[in-house]
């Protein structure tokens, strides 16, 4: 391979080629990432658990066997969000409730990638049960942004995004319920893709809001996101909401954007979006236009109602999903002699869940409770219909929609923890996409005051190939090549 090429800068696609041609070993690649973890993760805290020995052994095994068995992702070092259960590797969801939970099976998404040959490096930090936008809701301490350690990486997949941005993983798996892949990807200057709802199995994804949750890649490049997605998608008999993707996922190559019609979402570029973000966003869209895209204005008239509707529907689903944590079959049970089982439930749940999880459970319980069900849950489901219709209408005029991914760049730790509603607004641009179950991708658009800004592209359901193709073209047009100081340092 090319002389002193920094292994931490390699894309997965390039690493695969180098391994395939015998210029690079899986062991050397995995070793480089493990050593970066060892040097930097005490500062970044991207991981909750690193499985160095297992990873190195698995990489070694590929070097011995890979060429014969033809595993398509052989030897690629991968970080896995701790919301996905992994047999034999403790899976906590960043919660005290599951601090010692040792799953007896592996999530389908992880299993499929392992069958394709990835090397799991470890499990990444997140907001507890994926509820949050900064990774500060982890019961085991926050993750820090590799671009500025005083700032948050976003969330809830903040550990996965920070790991990729810090050179502590070649790529990572995340999950996205209201923006939890795209928003941290934006804040960390990497690529994050939320696939169409149903494309990727949710079996083994610890459920937060089942009608929104979706697993997807966090990567350095759009082509890498396509590569991982190719092996993630598929109907799974163990997830009845999974469907067969109508197209085989292809790795995008074409870079020009001629003939692509892109609509800027009027409601997501105005009030509430930082000036610095808007300026980088506008410049990036200008570059897409210069590369041949036809850019116009589009409208999602009910976008402003998506956030309130989401904060009824997602907590309502969460309150039901998290009822399973009762101290009986797995997870924490509060100690002491319990007078009765209700007392045991209450103490267990009060000790096991953190503040934000309790807040969302109570919010959801409130929205579903007698007397409020129709006013909140019923009405929010109707708003969801309006948001779906808005997207349908918008896609009659354009191929894809575009907006900033997040209203701000990475904010300081502690800046928004006192006010949940302000934190929730971090997802104002990403949530509408989840309500409609559409695919959305965030790519780096540039830097504002030295911090990454993300550009979000949204496509119709199951349009991943077009979305990835255009995102790849946009990536080339924008030409973002900055990396975090932690990867720069490793250049020597």
């Amino acid at each position, binding site marked *: 391979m090319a002389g002193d090429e920094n292994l931490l800068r390699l894309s997965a696609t390039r690493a695969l080629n180098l391994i395939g041609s015998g210029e690079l070993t899986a062991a050397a690649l995995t070793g480089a990432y493990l050593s970066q973890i060892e040097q930097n993760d005490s500062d970044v805290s991207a991981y909750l658990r690193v499985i160095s020995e297992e990873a190195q052994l698995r990489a070694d095994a590929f070097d011995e066997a890979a060429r014969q068995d033809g595993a398509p992702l052989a030897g690629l070092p991968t970080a896995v969000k701790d919301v996905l259960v992994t047999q034999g590797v403790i899976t906590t969801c960043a919660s005290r409730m599951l601090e010692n939970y040792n799953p007896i099976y592996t999530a389908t998404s992880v299993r499929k990638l392992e069958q394709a040959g990835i090397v799991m490096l470890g499990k990444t930090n997140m907001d507890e049960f994926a509820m949050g936008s900064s990774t500060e809701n982890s019961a085991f301490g926050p993750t820090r942004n590799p671009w500025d350690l005083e700032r948050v990486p976003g969330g809830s997949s903040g550990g996965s995004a920070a790991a990729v941005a810090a050179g502590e993983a070649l790529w990572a798996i995340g999950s996205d319920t209201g923006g939890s892949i795209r928003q941290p990807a934006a804040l960390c200057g990497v690529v994050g893709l939320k696939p169409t709802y149903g494309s990727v199995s949710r079996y083994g994804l610890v459920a937060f809001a089942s009608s929104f949750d979706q697993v997807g890649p966090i990567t350095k490049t759009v082509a890498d996101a396509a590569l991982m997605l190719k092996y993630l998608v598929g109907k799974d008999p163990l997830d009845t909401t999974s469907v067969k993707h109508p197209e085989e996922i292809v790795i995008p190559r074409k870079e020009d954007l001629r003939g692509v019609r892109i609509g800027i979402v009027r409601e997501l570029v105005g009030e509430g979006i930082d000036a610095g973000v808007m300026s980088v966003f506008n410049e990036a869209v200008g570059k897409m236009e210069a590369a041949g895209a036809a850019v116009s204005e589009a409208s999602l008239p009910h976008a402003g109602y998506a*956030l309130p509707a989401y904060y009824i529907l997602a907590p309502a689903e969460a309150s039901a999903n998290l009822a399973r944590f*009762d101290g009986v079959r797995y997870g924490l049970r509060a100690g002491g002699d319990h007078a009765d089982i209700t007392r045991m439930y209450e103490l267990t749940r*009060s000790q096991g869940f953190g503040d934000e999880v309790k*807040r969302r459970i109570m919010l959801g319980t409130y929205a579903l409770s007698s007397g409020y069900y129709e006013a909140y849950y019923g009405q929010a489901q109707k708003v969801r219909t309006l948001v779906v219709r808005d997207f349908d209408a918008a896609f009659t005029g354009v191929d894809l929609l575009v907006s900033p991914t997040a209203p701000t760049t990475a904010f300081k730790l502690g800046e928004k923890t006192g006010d949940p509603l302000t934190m*929730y607004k971090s997802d104002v641009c990403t949530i509408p996409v989840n309500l409609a*179950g559409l695919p959305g991708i965030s790519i780096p658009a540039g830097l504002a005051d030295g911090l990454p800004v993300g550009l979000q592209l949204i496509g119709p359901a199951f349009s991943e190939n077009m979305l990835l193709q255009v995102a790849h073209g946009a990536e080339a047009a924008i030409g973002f090549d900055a990396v975090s100081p932690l990867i720069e340092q490793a250049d020597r």
Partner: protein
Amino acid sequence: MISDDDVMYVARLARLRLEHGELARYAGQLSSIIGHIDKISELDLKDVEPTSHVIKLASVFRDDEVRPSVPQELALANGPEVEDGAFKVPQILEAEE
């Protein structure tokens, strides 16, 4: 808007036990969130159908075949308290004398 009593009520429904000092804090935060959520009441939703799920799926069935299930030992492996092949919980029925 959301009183301490409301918070106490939902906490009980959700099987959460809150400390006394937590009530006011949660009441304040939940009120602010609900205040924002109430924005949806601006909309006329009379003739709009609800969406519970974006994928139109009917009930999904599989063939009724006998297949191996999780072995009992494994199923119990994460149990906080296990006895005689079962999950043990605090007494839920009064013993009959």
